């Protein structure tokens, strides 16, 4: 299925793009995160990352659906 992924802050730097749209066989947010290698040495462990789908926070076990817009967010540092 085709999804769009948004990357922010350090994860944007790790991935090298702020967003991309592609076909994926992944069933969950967790599989997607790992398939992108974002939990690797240069990335961040799941525990530090908040995922969102379609502009709402969600868990890593959330299932993916066609057309979803997924976001991976490092710890926030606004304010």
């Amino acid at each position: 299925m085709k999804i769009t992924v948004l990357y922010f802050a350090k994860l944007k730097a790790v991935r090298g793009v702020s967003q991309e749209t592609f076909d994926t066989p992944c069933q969950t947010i967790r599989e997607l995160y790992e398939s992108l290698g974002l939990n690797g040495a240069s990335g961040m462990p799941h525990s530090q990352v908040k995922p969102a789908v379609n502009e709402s926070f969600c868990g890593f076990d959330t299932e993916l659906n066609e057309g979803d817009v997924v976001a991976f967010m490092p710890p926030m540092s606004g304010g």
Partner: protein
Amino acid sequence: MLFALTTEPIDPPALQKKMLSLQAGAFCSFEGWVRDHHLGRGVLSLEYEAYAELALKEGERILSEARSKFDILEAASVHRTGPLQPGDLAIWIGVTAVHRAAAFEACQFIIDTIKDQVPIWKHEFYTDGTDEWVDPASCSCSRLHDH
């Protein structure tokens, strides 16, 4: 919209003016200003990046929560995004109430929760030429060192 993002300078008096009423005896505000140093390093400039759609939703949710949690009249906040320099205003929060204790509590709750939960990130550029995405979780003393 009581929570807003802006790439323009924040104008506290204009924002406050919209909130005041003849019932509001107490007004408490918090402003976060860009400092010229962070954890001992000189800060040349910084950039705030936001996941705007989600940040706006979260910001509104936090202001609503403050209004139901505390006995206040109004609460509003504006966060600046894009490039900023030391001396620039990064965030403004204003709260009106009939009585002052609730205004203080709500204002502090709002800034604490915004910092923790609104998807905005600070990218600092240092005087030594390096730069870094500020990661509060990676700094054991983050509770002491954020403003």
